């Protein structure tokens, strides 16, 4: 086998992966988004129909997209999801940056242990961890119990099923996705750069703002996106910890899919969500690459 052929073969693997697990499912969803809902299984009508006389009719139903634009309910859910994701990613950044910096500056033999501690929660089930927070936050939970026994509060304060609980849950679950890329960037920074800044008269805070922070920007962007993107479509955490009024796009999607059995509308929702997320990121990548 020639080297060029071998190289192409190796490259074919990720392409095949992408095709099998992203492009094909995406094509299914896209097709369903343009279908009309119907009773039965699957609950939508095929796009291509035979109308006798050897004629195939391709019918694209745009009503789903029309509905998404017309009904403010969906737009609000989108905007709310974006806001929740942005706030969560920002909180993760504020907590994760000092953590990543501390790990990057820790003695070398201790760094692996600290990184391990960051990843450790992944070793238990995601659902279990979120459910554990219910036990901590509910009215008869540990936190209220502690505050009551300390005499700080007279009666339990509602913590569970609030926005705060939802943000807490999202931040808790996604923090490692912020810490890891930040650590990767920060640990690669030449310590001499910070010394040079101090040597030239920059106090530690100014040295951080002028040297460390701008040079860690790629890590900040990567971490922010890694938290932001999954948080936009997050369903489980708002469902388990968040308030009932919080209609996030993940929950709307679930409702349309499983409760209303309106697969075409749910698919359209997913397509729009994907486009809304991919477009700005693609634009960012394109501008960064220039």
């Amino acid at each position: 086998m020639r080297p060029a052929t071998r190289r192409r073969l190796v490259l074919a693997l990720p392409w095949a992966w992408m095709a099998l697990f992203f492009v094909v499912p995406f094509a299914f969803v896209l097709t369903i988004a343009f279908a009309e809902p119907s009773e039965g299984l699957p609950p939508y009508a095929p796009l291509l129909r035979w109308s006798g006389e050897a004629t195939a009719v391709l019918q694209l139903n745009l009503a789903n997209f029309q509905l998404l634009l017309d009904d403010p309910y969906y737009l609000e859910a989108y905007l709310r999801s974006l806001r929740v994701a942005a706030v969560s990613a920002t909180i993760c950044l504020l907590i994760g940056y000092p953590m990543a910096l501390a790990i990057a500056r820790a003695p070398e033999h201790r760094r692996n242990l600290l990184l391990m501690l960051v990843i450790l929660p992944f070793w238990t089930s995601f659902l279990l961890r979120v459910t554990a927070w219910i036990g901590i936050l509910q009215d008869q939970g540990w936190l209220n119990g502690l505050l009551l026994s300390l005499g700080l509060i007279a009666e339990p304060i509602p913590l569970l099923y609030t926005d705060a609980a939802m943000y807490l849950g999202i931040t808790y679950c996604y923090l490692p996705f912020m810490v890891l890329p930040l650590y990767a960037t920060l640990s690669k920074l030449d310590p001499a750069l910070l010394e040079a800044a101090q040597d030239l008269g920059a106090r530690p805070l100014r040295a951080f703002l002028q040297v460390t922070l701008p040079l860690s920007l790629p890590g900040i962007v990567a971490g922010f996106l890694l938290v932001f993107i999954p948080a936009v479509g997050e369903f489980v955490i708002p469902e388990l910890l968040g308030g009932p009024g919080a209609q996030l796009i993940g929950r709307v999607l679930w409702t349309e899919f499983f409760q209303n059995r309106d697969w075409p509308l749910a698919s359209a929702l997913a397509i729009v969500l994907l486009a809304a997320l991919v477009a700005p990121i693609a634009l960012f990548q394109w501008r960064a690459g220039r």
Partner: protein
Amino acid sequence: MSPSERPFGPTSLAEKPGAAEPWRDPSAEPFLRIEKVTKRFGDFVALDEVSLPIYRGELFALLGGSGSGKSTLLRCLAGFLEPDAGRIVLDGQDMAGVAPYARPVNMMFQSYALFPHMTVAQNIGFGLKQEGAAKPVITARVAEMLAMVKMEGFGDRKPAALSGGQRARVALARALAKRPKLLLLDEPLSALDKNLREATQFELINIQERTGTTFVIVTHDQEEAMTMATRLAVMDRGTLAQVGTPSEVYEFPNSRFTAEFLGTANILEGVVEGVEAEGVRIGSSELDFDILAEPAASKPLGSRVFVALRPERMRIERTAPGSAPGDNRLVGRVRDIGYYGDFFVYHVVLENGKEVRVSQPNLRRRTERPVDWEDTVAVTWDRQASMVLPE
């Protein structure tokens, strides 16, 4: 002598006739006083009561192998490390507890440590910006610095778009932009290839003379230290093995360590047998011959000494097999010849198996070698060339 009076030119201050030598003047006040500085890392003593006066306008080299303490001393001067004991006094100011950002000291880093996200001009202006200098002041100073290092027109480039030599210049300009009292250079030219390194060495000397700044340079490269420094200190395991001008340390090493560290030296062992009219007579304990040295090299009778001989101070000639050794005359067989272009190095094996190296300038082009492989040769030298060192 003020900096402007110093002549420009590609010569080291040390070799320049009439150059100021404040270290010979007992009344001269050192500009930088390092007093009994000790630094430990756990059980390891990196600096052991190092005391060193350095004078204004010097280009002082700290020379040593890895682990000798030279970098530790430099980092103590910069303020990145605080000595465990002892004092560092710069221009009358005790540096104890003074943070790196508050010291009138700047450093040219080994990796240059240029800020990759800033342009060359922003890098050079960084220090002045921290002082809160006005924009026009910074711009003017940056232009002046760029001209000094011959980098006009490169101000808008990012460091990644520069060659190694250009980066070194920018690093130097950045370190000098604040007009520090003391400039520290950490292996400044180790990343450059040989020709560029030599050219840059002379440029560094020129800039040092023009600005009059006191330089302390750390290097493991003895050639770099010899060509650049007014004085140098050879460091060994946290102590100063010897301090002096390059020629003093090279010609009059005080120990076997310095003799072998600076340049090459053949070491012969012997016992002082007598002081005669023509000099000190040292009986070789390993070979059947005597070494003569200058009377100044006198050590007590009967004491065991090392005699260090520089390869370039020895002569080599073909002789008849079986020829007898004599005073300052060894007989051996050529085992190997190293061809370096500008000189030859002959490896001569003596009767007892010991090997000495003799170097000879390559004076004529493509003629027969006067001495060839396996020749029996006599190696001779003048008694001034015998450097007698305590055992």
